[in-house]
């Protein structure tokens, strides 16, 4: 589903991705962990080209992102993204946040978009907030709306960029449980997170990144219980 080959990316003179190879299968939940500055968020943001990359290639669902005839907007319709800071549209109600893209991008009629939005709000447990504005929501509620907003486009892949890092501790659970449900339904997911419990429980595979490389990858139980690489051991000993 996602093929990444020798991905390289620099910000000015600082190279943050030094050659990433990854292959993500349909329905797989891949969790990316690693210290700050390891390049994991940049890697994720390259997958829908929110961040342009310098070398290598990314192929999503058979489409090469850097090919000349690739319509990036079409690719992005199929790749949902959830941000650390929610990025809800503050001038719109929750309902309009969710229906905007399906109506303007997918050209759905309003009734269809609203029915879909209400179904998704029910799924994330926020049906009663449909007509609220984002600034009246708690962090956990806002992030669940953001997930519903991404799902409304019916994407094939969901990217999560530290979705619980900006939340108060008591709200982390409600967001993770929505993500867990999504994983159980077979969504292909790439999740950058510091939630090791989630990685272990929900992840099919864990990638450990450090210094712009994928240092080690494997099943959660292998990587967490029997890390092979020194840097992985050092990192895990600090976070577990």
């Amino acid at each position, binding site marked *: 589903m996602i093929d990444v080959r020798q991905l390289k990316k620099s910000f000015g003179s600082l190279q943050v991705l030094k050659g990433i190879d990854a292959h993500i299968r349909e329905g797989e939940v891949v969790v990316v962990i690693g210290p700050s500055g390891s390049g994991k968020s940049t890697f994720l943001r390259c997958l*829908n080209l*929110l961040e342009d990359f310098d070398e290598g290639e990314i192929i999503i669902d058979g489409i090469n992102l850097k090919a000349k005839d690739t319509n990036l*907007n*079409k690719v*992005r*319709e199929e*790749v*949902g*993204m959830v*941000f650390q*800071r929610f*990025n*809800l*549209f*503050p*001038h719109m109600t929750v309902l309009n946040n969710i229906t*905007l*893209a399906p109506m*303007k*991008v*997918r050209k759905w009629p309003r009734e269809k978009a609203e029915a879909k939005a209400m179904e998704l709000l029910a799924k994330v447990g926020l049906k009663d907030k449909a007509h609220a*504005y984002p600034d009246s929501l708690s962090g956990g509620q806002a992030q669940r709306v*953001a997930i519903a*907003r*991404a799902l409304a*486009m019916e994407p094939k892949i969901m990217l999560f960029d530290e979705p619980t890092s900006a939340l108060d501790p008591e709200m982390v659970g409600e967001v993770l449980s929505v993500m867990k449900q999504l994983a159980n339904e077979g969504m292909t997911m790439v999740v950058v997170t510091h939630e090791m419990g989630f990685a272990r429980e929900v992840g099919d595979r864990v990638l450990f990144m450090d210094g712009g490389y994928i240092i080690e990858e494997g099943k959660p139980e292998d990587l967490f219980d029997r890390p092979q690489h020194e840097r992985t051991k050092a990192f895990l000993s600090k976070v577990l």
Partner: protein
Amino acid sequence: MDFRFDIIAEYAPYFFQGLLATIGVSLAGIIFGLILGLFIGLGRMSSKWIVRLPFSWYINFFRGTPLVVQILLVHFGVMPLFFAQPNGLVSLAVSLSLNSAAYVAEIFRAGIQSIDKGQMEAARSLGMTHAQAMRYIILPQALKRMIPPFANEFIVLIKDSSLGMVIAAPEIMYWGKAAAGEYYRVWEPYLTVAFIYLLLTLSLSKLSHYLERKYSTQ
């Protein structure tokens, strides 16, 4: 001290004409300034420096030189290229438009760039084009923040239209000067003129407060 209301009464029809002219050139300056300014502001934000360059210099020139000089250049330099008998009010409206466009461009740019970049990223990640993201996400939020600086700029524009006097454009100030010249009086004509400008600028600032309140409810 005697205050000669008869002078004001005599000149009332002219002040009224001048008022209409001032409103006319100011509206033209605001409308064309907004349209041209949006265009220049967008050009100024281009990611290519070669595209940015002419727009930056437009802004540099019109913000960095006195309006009175621009009015003289437009009326005696540019307009005669197109018209045998340049009309003072037209020249004034053109000068005000060109000048306010530079300030409007910077207001647009500052307003758009003040919106958190996560908003654009979220919109693009949903498959929206850059234009859709601008239209539905960035501009509605940015315009709200632009209301106070726009009001400020257009209040200045209304007052600056009085500089039309230097090319004998018959706006309010022109008639004030005419009355002052005829009767050698200072207070009656100039206080009347000041009072009319005050009415115009206060109306505009009330309108701005109303818009601010209207759009801040969400």
